[in-house]
């Protein structure tokens, strides 16, 4: 047996099983899902090839478009809400601009340790028509039938959900930023202070440029996480009333698992992946430009 054959056999023996498992659990389902998206399949019969018909149906469905709009709101809140807020909070704690920073660090991170279903029930208890805030509002307005009309508006029903998403996930980004801030050598900042740099200059000229990569990573997390968001919203509103708070993942779930439309559900999942890739590619190119500008 030649050395080359032996090497080949070793590679096959060592990598083969892992590769086979990976292919079976990851590659095959993805390929299966993409193929299914061009078919009508109830899960019990032989799939019927329908080409792009289901994609056309999805894109022309107002429920899907409203779900997409809600998803884009979640992306916006994640990218322009959670990440900046997480960064600011991490910066305040890192620079010890507030007393008891360890306490705040724990408190801000706390929501992420709770299950999304528990968070949903908690906020439902607060804002539900039988919840404490509604009861308080009823006594203030002296109106026993008072309810938050925002929850019944097609345009605004998603906003309370966005608030809960902001409350729940900001802590994650804060911890990521804090861990990376702690990697910056204190001597660099101390030198800057000795040289007379202001807090703003330290942030703009030292901290932000060194955090560019991690900001990009968190944005990628935020986008992919936002497009597949499901558990919190499903437990909180179920996508209702009347699909007002529905997101694409719930739309996919209902069509697949309630109406036995596996091909249709696969097409929705392919759209989610496509949207994620487009948004992440756009962000990648934007950051490449920023890197070229600041990295030079």
């Amino acid at each position, binding site marked *: 047996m030649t050395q080359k054959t032996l090497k080949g056999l070793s590679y096959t023996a060592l990598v083969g099983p892992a590769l086979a498992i990976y292919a079976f659990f990851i590659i095959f389902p993805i390929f299966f899902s993409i193929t299914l998206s061009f078919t009508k399949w109830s*899960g019990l019969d032989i799939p019927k090839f329908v080409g792009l018909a289901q994609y056309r149906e999805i894109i022309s469905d107002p429920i899907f478009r409203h779900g997409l709009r809600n998803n884009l709101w979640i992306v916006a809140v994640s990218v322009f809400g959670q990440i900046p807020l997480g960064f600011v909070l991490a910066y305040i704690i890192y620079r010890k601009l507030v007393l008891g920073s360890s306490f705040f660090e724990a408190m801000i991170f706390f929501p992420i340790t709770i299950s999304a279903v528990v968070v949903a029930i908690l906020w439902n208890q607060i804002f*539900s028509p039988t919840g404490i805030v509604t009861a308080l509002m009823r006594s203030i307005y002296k109106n026993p*039938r008072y*309810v938050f009309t925002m929850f*019944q508006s097609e345009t605004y029903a998603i906003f309370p959900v966005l608030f809960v998403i902001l409350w729940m996930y900001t802590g994650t980004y804060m911890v990521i930023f804090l861990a990376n801030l702690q990697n910056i050598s204190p001597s660099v900042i101390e030198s800057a202070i000795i040289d007379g740099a202001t807090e703003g200059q330290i942030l703009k000229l030292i901290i932000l440029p060194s955090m560019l990569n991690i900001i990009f990573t968190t944005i990628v997390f935020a986008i992919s996480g936002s497009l597949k968001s499901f558990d919190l919203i499903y437990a909180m509103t*179920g996508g209702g009333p*009347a699909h007002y708070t529905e997101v694409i993942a719930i739309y996919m779930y209902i069509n697949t698992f*309630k*109406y036995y*439309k596996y091909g249709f559900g696969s097409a929705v999942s392919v759209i989610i992946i496509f949207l994620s890739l487009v948004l992440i590619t756009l962000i990648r190119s934007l950051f490449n430009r920023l890197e070229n500008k600041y990295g030079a």
Partner: protein
Amino acid sequence: MKKLLTLLVVLFFLGNTLFATGQKEATKGGKITLSMYTYQDLSDPVTTKNWKVLLNKFKSEHPNIEFSIEYGFNEPYHNKLQAMLVADQLPDIIFLWPGKRTGKVTGSGKIKDLRPWLKGHEKEFASIAMAPQGKNGEIYELPEAVTATHVMYTNTKFLKQLGLSFPKTHAELLAQGAKIRAQNLIPIAMTNKSQWQMQSCLLSTLTERAGGMEWFKKAIKGEGASFADPEFVNALSVIDQLSKNQMFSPGINQLDYGQALTQFVNEKAVYYIDGGWRVNSLKQELTTAQKKYVVLNTYPDIPNQKGQSGSTSMVAGTGYGMNAKLTGAKADAAWQWIWFYSGPEGSKIRQANGAITAYKLPVPQNADILVKELTKFVSERPAGYVLDAVMDAEGIGVLQTGVQEMMLGRKTPKQVADEYEAWVAKNDSNRKH
């Protein structure tokens, strides 16, 4: 392309089969172990306690049969059942619905027809419970009960205090609203966050009221009638008017199922619309004093009514079925459970807990007052169909969303009716002759 698709499906099922082979041998040392997937809200102490009484009684009588039980409730139950079906991993015993709710499962050929075991016992059950569940008259699950999906529970103490009586017409009911609200009370406690409640517990009854059974049957088949007819618009208009006149619980479309029950039990509401199955909970939640003034009614007459006064909507109840793969001792053991649960023994236990059993039993003299009332209600009230038991699930989704939008003021009853009919005409299996 077809070959590729077939290959993919084969691979998919091959994978499932590979993982399914891990199931342990179910008959050991004379003991038979059956896997069971059942419908039970484990967070509800009342029904969970009742379920355990049944289970323990069966176990004490059949020590050779053991169960490996998985629980589910509400939508997650159905979602998991569907995943089990598609993956060809249905358990031995499965909790099923007689109509469209689990129609894909019962119609898949993977559930055994119970008629060979049932033979000779048919007349011991209420006739509605023996209605065919399959195209060739199959009985896939043995119904445990006869279910009225519409009951208008009434607190007569409040009516008396307010100088009111149970309304004879929809207009009279609307007129009571102002007087009831003035006392900080809710006219009709009801929830609709999950959407099915309004369709199952009120709209189904109103549909029969508006058009009558002949029209209802024709509309389902699309033979000379449709859901775009004025009859169905009339039924929807009743809900629209109730909503616009603030008759329902505030924020009804945000309220979780169960919250209306709490409002009624805590005496915050005069009327409460839900299914007959709620007697099971009310029996234990209401005090003895309360039970004396809680009465079971149906919705009053509606304008242009062509159906029957006092009608409700009724359906054969749920029950257990068995996996078509079971044979021999395992199949017999599964039948023993199914017969225990829906037959005379289990029915007596469930009757004592407030169920109107499909198995014909005399009502015991010492039965709870609410159980006696519900038994009388079910036997005397004329009944129509429950929409989600006869129409396809996806279309029901379209209808239920439309009803919510109507209640939120974004659609008219006519729009909802037209949109539903458009879906039914194009897709519903009842229209595919």
